[in-house]
């Protein structure tokens, strides 16, 4: 085997890996370019879509999904799926609101209580998947019901108006609230990307998702790895909930209803395979941005109100189809 033959396929594979995230990035940029062109202001002047403020807006709202997608994509890579993030987000906002307003806890303590929701929900999912060996879909569907159910029980249809006690221009550590969500999202994305690539436990997630039996025979502690991904997923969902309640000012049981499907779709658009073993944290976050841009830009197009569901559906299909075709080309 000569060094020459070695070089070609290595860089091809490395390319492929990189391409997978690059291609998601490319789609995102294409999408942005499209809307930049489509929404170009007729008379010149300020561009309604391409401006710093709007960029921040997209990031801020996408982060609610994006932070949760970091964990959800890890679950998918491990060969599972997590349907609970939306409900965990909601219960976190409710518990935080309840502790802060009703139980008069301090804000940090209330935030910890909110994150505790993530630990418990993730622990329950993990227990059901690892110990009872339920299929992840049904285990997390159950946890989704239980979590959201608790949120309804605590609120009884009311909401906790946290905005009453958080000053509107509040800037913890000097960072404006609006910046926090995007920053947290990017930091988590980088940290967990490195984790999945360079840390043994992260590599093991790929192994477990690729071939669970082989992972067991290889001495990987499959149970621990799975427990880890479900707990991380739920804790990040809870973190997203914390940011949601601080940013939006409300703890409410119906928040983030149905977001789990958007989050899963984002991860898949970003290259994750629902049969496990493949995916990327960065890709998943980029996936949420692709949807975030849609949610932001569609309302800017007069008359699009009734079309947004269709467009989102079409975008999901088209992106994944194009991706599939590109992947086949490359083979």
């Amino acid at each position, binding site marked *: 085997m000569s060094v020459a033959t070695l070089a070609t396929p290595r860089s091809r*594979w490395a390319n492929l890996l990189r391409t997978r995230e690059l291609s998601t990035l490319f789609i995102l940029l294409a999408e942005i370019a499209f809307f930049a062109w489509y929404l170009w202001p007729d008379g010149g002047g300020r561009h309604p879509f391409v401006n710093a403020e709007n960029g921040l807006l997209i990031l801020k709202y996408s982060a609610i999904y994006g932070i949760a997608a970091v964990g959800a994509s890890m679950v998918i890579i491990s060969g599972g799926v997590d349907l609970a993030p939306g409900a965990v987000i909601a219960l976190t906002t409710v518990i935080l609101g309840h502790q802060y307003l009703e139980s008069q806890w301090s804000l940090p303590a209330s935030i910890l209580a909110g994150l505790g929701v993530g630990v418990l929900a993730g622990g329950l999912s993990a227990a059901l998947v690892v110990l009872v060996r339920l299929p992840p879909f049904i285990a997390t569907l159950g946890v989704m019901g239980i979590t959201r159910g608790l949120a309804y029980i605590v609120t009884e249809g009311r909401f906790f108006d946290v905005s009453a006690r958080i000053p509107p221009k509040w800037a913890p550590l000097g960072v404006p609230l609006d910046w926090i969500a995007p920053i947290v999202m990017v930091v988590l994305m980088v940290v967990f990307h490195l984790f999945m690539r*360079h840390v043994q436990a992260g590599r093991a997630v790929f192994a477990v998702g690729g*071939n669970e039996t082989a992972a067991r025979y290889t001495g990987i502690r499959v149970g621990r790895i799975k427990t880890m991904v479900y707990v991380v997923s739920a804790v990040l969902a809870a973190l997203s909930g914390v940011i949601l309640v601080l940013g939006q000012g409300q703890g409410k049981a119906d928040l983030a209803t149905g977001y789990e499907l958007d989050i899963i779709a984002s991860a898949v658009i970003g290259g994750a395979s629902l049969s496990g073993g*493949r995916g990327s944290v960065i890709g998943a976050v980029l996936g949420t941005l692709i949807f975030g841009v849609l949610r932001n830009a569609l309302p800017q197009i007069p008359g699009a109100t009734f079309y947004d569901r269709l467009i989102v559906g079409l975008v999901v299909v088209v992106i994944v189809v194009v991706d599939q075709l590109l992947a086949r080309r490359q083979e």
Partner: protein
Amino acid sequence: MPDLMSALAFEDVSKAFGGVKALRGVTLSVAPGDAHALMGENGAGKSTLMKIAAGIHRPDSGRLLYKGQVLDLVAPRAALAAGIGLVHQETLLFPNLDVAENIFAGHEVRRGWFVDRRAMHARSAELLAQLHLDVDPATMVSRLSAAQQQLLQVARALAFHCEVLILDEPTTSLTDSEVDHLFAVLELLRSRGVTLIYVSHRIPEVFRLCRTVSVLRDGQHVGTWPLEGKSAHDIVRAMVGRDLETGHGQGKVGEAVRLDVRGLARHPHFRGVDVQVREGEIVGLFGLIGAGRTEVVETIFGLHRPDEGTMRVDGESFAPHAPADAIRRGVVLQPEMRQSQGLFFNLPISENLLLAREAARNGWMRQLGRERGECEALLTRWGIKAASIDVPPDSLSGGNQQKVVLAKWLATAPRVLLLDEPTKGVDVGAKHDIHHLIRQEAALGMGCLVVSSDLPELLALADRIVVLKQGRVQGEVPRGATEEDVMQLATRAEETDAA
């Protein structure tokens, strides 16, 4: 010139998978009623050629002639309809269906609109009995052992009444007596005029069953010869392109007991198993199908908890809760089924080689840069033929995949190496390499416990052989024993059971 006298002929057939040229202009014909062996090293293209005959792959160029007619197979269905059946090298069964349904899947016996379950069960029972496979047609396939599953795949092919029956390494999980039963059936088919194509790495079997042999090397047809008058030596030379010395190469067995297993039991699979392996020693573990060998080594490896018994490694008590514990103590297992238990097809070879070691290591950061060098060294040392360490293992031939699995374990620098069918489906060259490497590792002081259904292999490799029957140790034979000695131990037990 198309050979009008052939049952099946390939004309200038080529096939590439991406950059890999699996077949390069193969022209080869098989006479009607022949028992034709197809041999070649791992990755030579045997399975690919056979899959073309079964309508699974379409050739990139060239054509297929069947009874003198050009045959364009668009799907497996078309091949079956034409009377060409293939017993696949890989296990291809429906774990969720029972034995009868597996045999008839897609070709159910029908009465009117409905599937005739009763008829299928009756017919299945016949087929199973022919192969001396003692399972109920209503058993779920997920409950069958590897060997039973392999025989079941044969039974399925028999159900189709093919004119050309291709068997791609059908005996890799079988011991001699099962092979006997299988060959009896194949002889019968041949006497009825069925053309057989037999792919195998087991040279004695080829001499027993076949009349003609074709050899492939690197995707090209080397030649076709009548087997009459040929020696094993000739065939190996044709396949490998060189001579292989068949040295027994006895290593030196030390005094220290590496692995000491006493009274190990896991009901209902085995009980009262005592095995000692010394440093530098290679101990064989032999037994008939379902004797519980796999269960024993998996239990030692910490995949199952024993019900009774004690284990020691280098004199210290050893009770692993999980493979990770065993690996940390230097006890590793190369599992029986490399595809489902040994490899990650979503990950590059480099990960496949190092995951085990890294999972057992205490540190948590990986040094991907340094690892590359190690992986490339492993590839060279084991002579693994791969495009690079960055391709996933599905692009490798079976033998090379097996070497990856072995290399991954030796990369952990184990003290006790448990091997379950280490040369299953591996070509003579690779087998030779693997034996050589096992001996080399043992010589460095490792203790090896080798499970193999290939008795000649065990006799050549092991310092002594422990014989297992129905989960109990029947005795052991020392180096230099004959096949008869071993089989006697196994069959004696059978006679006492029958009494």
